[in-house]
């Protein structure tokens, strides 16, 4: 009997702690840049998550892997993906025809016809 009471007590204490931790401590990521986090409410985050999950599955990511990928993201990152999953740079392959364009660019740069670093 004592044993059961002990388990119940531990469970209750854990419950209290988990409740407190999830309820009121604010993630540091919500505090680093308050203006950027302005629309990062709970509802917004849930919408972002559903949105990104659907898009990623549609884009060929294995359904089982999607949740694990989303789990690594902060709310800010999730929002960034929700906004820009289709158009954000996606580093992939380089085929020779692209190499040719690049070589022309390099030659133009080297010869001073263009100077892409002028502004910096």
């Amino acid at each position, binding site marked *: 009997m004592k044993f059961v009471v002990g388990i119940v007590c531990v469970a209750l204490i854990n419950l209290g702690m988990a409740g407190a931790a999830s309820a009121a401590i604010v993630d540091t990521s919500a505090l680093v840049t308050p203006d950027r986090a302005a629309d990062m409410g709970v509802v917004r985050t849930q919408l972002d998550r559903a949105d990104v999950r659907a898009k990623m599955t549609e884009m060929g990511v294995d359904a089982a892997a999607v949740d694990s990928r989303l789990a*690594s993201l*902060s709310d800010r*990152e999730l929002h960034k993906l929700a906004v820009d999953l289709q158009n954000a740079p996606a580093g992939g392959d380089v085929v020779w025809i692209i190499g040719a364009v690049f070589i022309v660019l390099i030659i133009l740069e080297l010869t001073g016809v263009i100077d892409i670093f002028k502004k910096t």
Partner: protein
Amino acid sequence: MKKRAAPQAARFAFLAASLLLLSACVTREPFIPANLPAGARAHVELAATPFYPQKKYQCGPAALAAVLGASNVDVTADALVPVVYLPARHGSLQVEMLAAPRKFGRLAYPLSRNLDSVIAELSAGRPVLVLHNYGLPSWPRWHYAVVIGYDSARDEFILRSGTKRRTEWSARTFMVAWHNGGRWAMVVLRPGEIPASADPTLYLDAAADFERAAKPEDSRAAFDAAVQRWPQQPVAWIGRGTAEYRAGRFANAARDYAEAVRLDPENAGARNNLAQSLLDLGCPARAREQLAPVEIDALASPLREAVLDTRRHIDAAVSASPVIDESRCSPPP
């Protein structure tokens, strides 16, 4: 159509050749010597960086496996395909490249967009993952590669890229591809490691994004390093406090949050977290004092909801036992 293609190609070749000849007349400043930070070595090659030849479109997983390997994480490029590869985009996104190291207890730090930070990291022994654009700014073709070194005298970078284990690039060629790719670069850090080129805002942002996916001890190490390096930054103390809180060490958490409040009395997030920690320590009156100056209406979500929650918890604690002896609670900071 075919008839016209040959003269066009010849004209193109002529143009290219004459431009190449012309290049002999143009002098350009070397890049690496001009961006060598104080104390950086003149020649670096991190030859121990692992190499994974990329498969079709999968330079993201290959480059990531290399920088993780250099940080003592044993993972192959193939194992990272389900983590960062996006089949319909034939590539990997920057956000996911930054997030993936968290699965292995590492945090990614995106470098400031200048060459000296890349050089500083290499000189400190960290390979740098970069995003290149081999197309045009208006017609981009993206590629991830890993810079493993440089030679200041020859003005060259040494890279692991695509299917090439080791390739040397003139710094100017590298810069064209990097500049057109938005000058994006990242390094992988062990929790507690501060990058050589560290900027407090970039680092604290990276540590904050690391926080939720990380173990409390790893998150603590990341913010503890920030507290040592930038003790005037409230966010560094808030982050360490939250790691302490998540580990159940409420007194330590309260001490760190209190320091953040001392540095930035207007910081409602720090006050909220301090109040919650004080409440957990059995000090609701002290907790209430912390929230007194906070103006709820001025707050954005999710901070607003959190402060309202904390207030409710405090009220509940006070009404549950109106007379609490708080003499053991430390005085407010």
